[in-house]
């Protein structure tokens, strides 16, 4: 899998999870801030935690 395709797959899976959660809890989740927070969680927080655990 190429890096570009892998990145796309991560976005697609993140989007799928976000949509599933939002459909059932639209009052709490569906806003721009939460959308950006979900992306930052996936692309900033989780890699950071994994990096720390690996050391």
């Amino acid at each position, binding site marked *: 899998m190429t890096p*570009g395709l892998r*990145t796309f797959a991560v*976005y697609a899976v*993140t*989007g799928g999870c*976000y*949509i599933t959660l*939002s*459909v*059932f809890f*639209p009052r709490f989740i*569906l806003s*721009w801030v939460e*959308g*950006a927070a979900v*992306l*930052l969680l*996936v*692309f*900033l927080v989780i*890699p950071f935690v994994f990096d720390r655990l690996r050391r």
Partner: protein
Amino acid sequence: MSWVAHDLEPYAIQRHLGKRVAIIPLLIGSYAPDLTTKWFVYGISVFGVQVKADDPAQFHRGWPGAGFTHSLLFGVVIAALLLLLTHRRIWAFSFLIGQWSHALTDTGDTVGTMLFFPWTQHFALGAWQYAGQIGRFNDAGAYFSGPGFVWDGVWVVLATLGWRTLTRSYFETTVLPVDPIWSWASAAMPAAAVIALYRASYFYGVCRWITWLIWAHVLNNYQFDVSWGGPMWVTGATAGGTTARLGMGPMAGMCPCAGCGFR
């Protein structure tokens, strides 16, 4: 009102204008007219007390009210202030384009916008119902059942067709060099996170377009009606006698009585 168009229009504009615009002020401009007013249109509960506009459409788009935020002049004033304070022409120009796109897009519904405020004439295409007065969830149900969701779908397609603007190489060669905010962000966090922030509005826009469609038609049973001025099962708001129709609107032949919903 439009739901997803304001998230995605900036990416289509970015695609066409390239280095002549900066995406952050473009997005802020695109959100600006609703940024401080939308919560009061739908209402919020503060310690059990409901805080909401008495007449949401009047407050959101009218005068007296906050409708001036949807005028072309509002964009010019804020852009001029931005220029004065930051001396960055690209920020001012980008904000102006974003705000104008919002003001023009919102002429699509039955209330329309006071484009040429202080002239308080509303310009409305009447393509879909303005239903902010019935609360966020019912408004979503109505919007994602009528021509509004088709209109947003056009922007989903246009922004997706311009997928190259979302790539890392486009970001590095076109978006990053024109706006120092991205350089500051790049110094503070990894590249993947910075690019994720750049893509956030696209991600959010597409996700919520899909989400509300599923919510309205799979989890709930709102009826599709994509006819012009639809959905007809909801009594939408209009700007009363002050609306100038740009095209064929639902106001023609409508009963002036606000309650009966006869068309």
